[in-house]
């Protein structure tokens, strides 16, 4: 990545994604956009707003509310040379398009023995907060990660998100880009101009020697925060932002666990059958002798996510939970952990549970 000539500004992940998509669309005339309300005043939370200032209207395609066919239409367009970016306002809407995604998008290259390519990006937003309820807040990355032929990425930080959006569009494979709505709000320094961030696996965003944490998307923000508190207690954790769920490349994690001997995974989705299960299973095999304790998995509990803020406490993992689990794993004195947790609470300044933490501002 060359940022030599580019300017750094503090913007949100949502804006960074818009910049990335705009840059890649300007550069590559094959890029086309599909969304419900593609050009409306909101334009998928502003993440694809203003495109028509840069590219022709015929490349900005309004989707009827028909997710299955429109996914197929995008796949068909991709097979004959376009690079469609499909944006869904919620992960759940893609449930209507699973057949097209799993059979056509993921398999067209394979089944055609490489004759076809499907350079397609499907953006799915994880809804959280403000009473979204069970059908507007699911993460479901495992469903896509299960499917060979798909790539699945979950950007977190603004700078990375912009570059990953570009890389996803440049990729010749179907890429499912799962974006957490609360990441959209996180702010940080982002270079202007065109650049790509390789879809090359997890990246360490915090260094430490006692514990390896692999977290994805919004959970990375919580994990880093926990790691920072942990440091004040004299322990340190390496936090990996997973970034790429499929293909799942864990070499860096193995190398880290070989040093720390301890692994924790933190999912934005369900803990059960979550991404963490695969990471733990692989790490146990690869780092069997190095492990000092059983790995810990954190994720959503085994039930849907209800709407009421009264029902939410305890559902979403947060820095406090991560800190407590890390404390147990590292045998830290419980009083000290609780004191650190209390500090986190204070930092949150009494904000309600269903809105994102203003703490997640860069520069990252």
């Amino acid at each position: 990545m060359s940022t030599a000539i580019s300017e750094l500004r503090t913007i949100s992940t949502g804006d960074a994604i818009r910049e990335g998509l705009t840059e890649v669309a300007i550069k590559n005339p094959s890029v086309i956009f599909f969304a419900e309300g593609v050009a409306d005043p909101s334009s998928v939370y502003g993440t694809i707003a203003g495109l028509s200032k840069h590219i022709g209207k015929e490349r900005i395609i309004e989707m009827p509310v028909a997710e299955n066919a429109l996914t197929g239409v995008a796949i068909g367009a991709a097979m004959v040379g376009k690079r469609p970016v499909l944006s869904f306002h919620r992960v759940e809407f893609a449930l209507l398009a699973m057949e097209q995604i799993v059979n056509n998008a993921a398999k067209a290259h394979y089944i055609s023995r490489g004759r076809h390519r499907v350079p397609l990006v499907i953006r799915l937003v994880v809804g959280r907060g403000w009473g979204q309820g069970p059908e507007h807040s699911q993460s479901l990355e495992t469903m896509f990660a299960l499917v060979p032929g798909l790539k699945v990425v979950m950007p977190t930080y603004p700078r990375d998100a912009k570059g990953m959006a570009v890389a996803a569009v440049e990729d010749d494979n179907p890429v499912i880009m799962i974006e957490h709505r609360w990441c959209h709000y996180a702010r940080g320094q982002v270079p202007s101009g065109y650049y790509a961030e390789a879809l090359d696996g997890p990246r360490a965003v915090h260094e430490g020697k006692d514990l390896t944490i692999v977290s994805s998307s919004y959970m990375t923000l919580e994990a880093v925060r926990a790691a920072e508190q942990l440091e004040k207690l004299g322990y340190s954790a390496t936090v990996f932002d997973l970034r790429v769920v499929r293909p799942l490349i864990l070499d860096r994690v193995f190398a880290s666990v070989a040093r720390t001997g301890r692994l924790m995974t933190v999912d934005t989705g369900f803990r059960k059958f979550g991404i963490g299960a695969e990471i733990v299973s692989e790490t146990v095999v690869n780092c069997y002798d190095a492990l000092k304790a059983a790995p810990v998995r954190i994720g959503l509990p085994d039930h849907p996510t209800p709407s009421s803020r009264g029902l939410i406490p305890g559902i979403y993992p947060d820095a406090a939970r991560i800190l407590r689990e890390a404390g147990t794993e590292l045998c830290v004195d419980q009083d000290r952990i609780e004191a650190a947790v209390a500090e986190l609470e204070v930092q949150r300044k009494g904000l309600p549970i269903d809105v994102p933490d203003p703490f997640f501002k860069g520069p990252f």
Partner: protein
Amino acid sequence: MTDLTVSQTPTAQKLLHEMLFIRLVEETIAARYAEQEMRCPIHLSVGQEAAAVGVCQALRPADRVFSTHRCHAHYLAKGGDLRPMLAEIYGKAAGCIGGRGGSMHLTDPEKGMIASVPIVASSIPLAVGSALADRIDGADRVSVAFFGDASVEEGVFHESANFASLNKLPVLFVCENNLYSVYTPLAQRQPARPLAEVVSGHAMKVLSADGNDVEAVLRASLEAAEHARSGKGPVFLVFNTYRWREHCGPNFDNQLGYRTEAEYLEWRARDPIECLKSKLASSGDLDERDLQKTQEEMQREIDDAFEFARAAPLPDPSQASQFVYA
């Protein structure tokens, strides 16, 4: 129409009161939403009350209604209780489903409000399944799927229509065409043809009526219910109407420019409540003072219910893990 249904026909007065009550409830939601105590997305039907009321007044208590994200009016029109509705929107334990779903999931099975599902078109086949069960049991019941104009773009709508028509199931497919899906007008989503024709391929009876004329809606719905109930098959009902406020939220949003102020004002002039009032007035059937009194009583009931909902306790977090499995 048979005599039976005619004899059940509600009075214009009743229709007016039903619409008015829904309007007052939703206007109060709009007024109080900024307090940030109703912490869930809300989709108001202000301006669209005639469709909900006209259809539901053609139904029997045992008939079943299925709705969408925009379900307040349907819930109330089908006889759903106000307090559990508001408590649900406030996320309280006393909510009709204990705060699990909020505004987009209003449910009152005892009143025949079976389910509201916030995924576009997702509840349509549920209504068809209910009708199928009734056909198997020989039950004398009608199932109703309420949905918006965007729902007919979803494949599941056509699949459901095909199956219901094939089996002559007692379903009413009720399309409230408010011309928009969020900010996107019909013309950007569907080819030019009257919306009523969207089911032409499914050999289904179609009835349209002015969606802001509650009596016209009622007449069409009575005819449709009678048709479906007597085993002649499903009916597709189209009611053109208009959503006054923003798609999601309490405000007006014409300033955004996705629709013209002129269009809005034109529809606003066709307020279903004012239209009916004028009609009653011109035939001398409107007692303004009586209505004023009724309205004040309604508002008191509504304010009480809001107070109840606001003050009610939140559900205990421990409840979140209940009812995953029966």
